[in-house]
């Protein structure tokens, strides 16, 4: 186990150096779009109370946190790996070394995890402060389960980013993946509205996408006084994570990259 952890650290080290060199740039890129969503949807678009009894701004902030975990974790893992694999070819160097494939999958997802967590927690802190100022009190909470669920969400979307980068044949195919999969998820998966308000057919479709589980889960963890913790979504998100991990491992194992 300690050997695996050491290997994960070694794999992640180069990416952490990359992050250190570009910290400000990465930070701004990570939080720019979530903050725009927060301003536009949370403060600009709608006021009033939702059907679960909380203000819309308190409802939407956990959704935007889930969205940030997707955007930041997915894009940082996939972009860096795509560049390393297709342009620098430095990913090949790692594959030629005596590293465990488990360590490579976990190690290469660490950048996405760290970036995702930075973005999510900055956004949540802003959301807590601004939301409290707006509604004159605190509805959202920073619970341990909120932290666990946010970490899980960042890991799951990092694994997805790795799978996308390993399958990509070019930069163009990454852009296509973003347009066809990531962008629709951003707006449809319960980030800005409650999935339960939709027709059952649409609900079924949306529960086929991982961000729906993440949104529902993080929202239930952030609003413990208004919602029961969503254990089913937790299991669902873990299963998505296992599936993406298995795809990453299989792609590396069979050298289909």
């Amino acid at each position, binding site marked *: 186990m300690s050997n695996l952890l050491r290997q994960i650290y070694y794999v992640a080290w180069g990416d952490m150096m990359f992050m250190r060199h570009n910290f400000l740039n990465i930070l701004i890129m990570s939080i720019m779009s979530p903050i725009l969503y927060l301003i536009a949807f949370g403060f600009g678009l709608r006021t009033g109370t939702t059907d679960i009894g909380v203000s819309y701004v308190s409802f939407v902030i956990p959704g935007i946190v889930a969205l940030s975990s997707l955007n930041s974790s997915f894009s940082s893992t996939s972009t860096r790996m795509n560049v390393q694999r297709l342009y620098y070819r430095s990913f090949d160097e790692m594959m030629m070394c005596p590293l465990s494939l488990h360590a490579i999958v976990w190690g290469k997802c660490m950048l996405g995890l760290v970036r995702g967590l930075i973005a999510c927690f900055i956004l949540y802190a802003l959301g807590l402060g601004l939301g409290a100022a707006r509604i004159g009190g605190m509805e959202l909470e920073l619970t341990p389960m909120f932290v666990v669920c946010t970490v899980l969400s960042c890991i799951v979307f990092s694994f997805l980013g790795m799978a996308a980068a390993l399958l990509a044949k070019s930069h163009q195919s990454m852009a296509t993946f973003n347009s066809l999969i990531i962008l629709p998820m951003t707006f449809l998966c319960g980030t800005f509205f409650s999935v339960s308000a939709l027709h059952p057919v649409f609900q079924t479709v949306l529960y086929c996408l991982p961000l729906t589980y993440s949104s529902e889960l993080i929202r239930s963890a952030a609003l413990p006084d208004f919602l029961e913790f969503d254990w089913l979504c937790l299991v669902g998100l873990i299963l998505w994570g296992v599936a993406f991990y298995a795809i990453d491992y299989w792609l590396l194992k069979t*050298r289909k990259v």
Partner: protein
Amino acid sequence: MGDIIVIEDLVKTFDGKTAVDRLNLRIREGELFGFLGPNGAGKTTTVRCVATLTNFDSGTITVDGYDLVKNPREAKERMGVIQQQVSLDKDLTIRENMISHAMYHMMGRAERDEKIRELSDFFGLEEYLDRPVDSLSGGWKKRAAIVCAMLHNPKVLFLDEPTSGLDINARRLLWDVVRRLHAGGTTIVLTTHYIEEAEALCDRVGIIDHGRIIALDTPQRLCESVGSVAVEYMEDARTRYRYFGTREEANAFAAGINTGVDVTIRRTNLEDVFVELTGKSVGGQK
């Protein structure tokens, strides 16, 4: 010295097209072996199979006695690979690239710092260590890539087209580096389509075409196999080549060629061997 790399009946296909076709090859410990062939002959694919970057369809590969499929970790520990395209991470400095490589091979901090210092000194890279990769010229990047590949003391070093795209000075510098590594006892497998490179450096040369080894010997013996003296002359607006075992035979043949035709008598080189065996020039044209 025994065989450090043994490849038996290696087959690799891409979408039904055979890139490596039942290739058999044994490379001896300590030798500088050259893989010579036109573009698309299967050189790089073979190296990628040995380097574990590509799975192969059938056959076996052992490195220093370790089967690549059954004991990939042990085999990888014994190899260093420098790819055709410099594969350093351009977002990091040269030193950070080296540290990364050392970490991938589980080297401790003291050992890796010492090794980086030693190899940087050997290759004259000290002043470039903290520079970004892209601030270096092609030749220096190749040197840095070689240092990365050498950090874990591999027994075998694969150099895939190491001088491709380099200017003449950088190429000669790299040849010196290869000679120094070889003199230090490292087994080197060099793939190239530069004939003069193979002739200048290699103890033995394997000529590969259509994924198969079609000739394997020392450069000198390969030349002797087609005739060690070449006669080059013009006929019907095309350059013709004939090969002879001795200079006397070549002189006698040249004397019979029409006067007024330019005739050159010279030593046979590997390019002649290659064209004789494959019917192609090294660049791949018929």
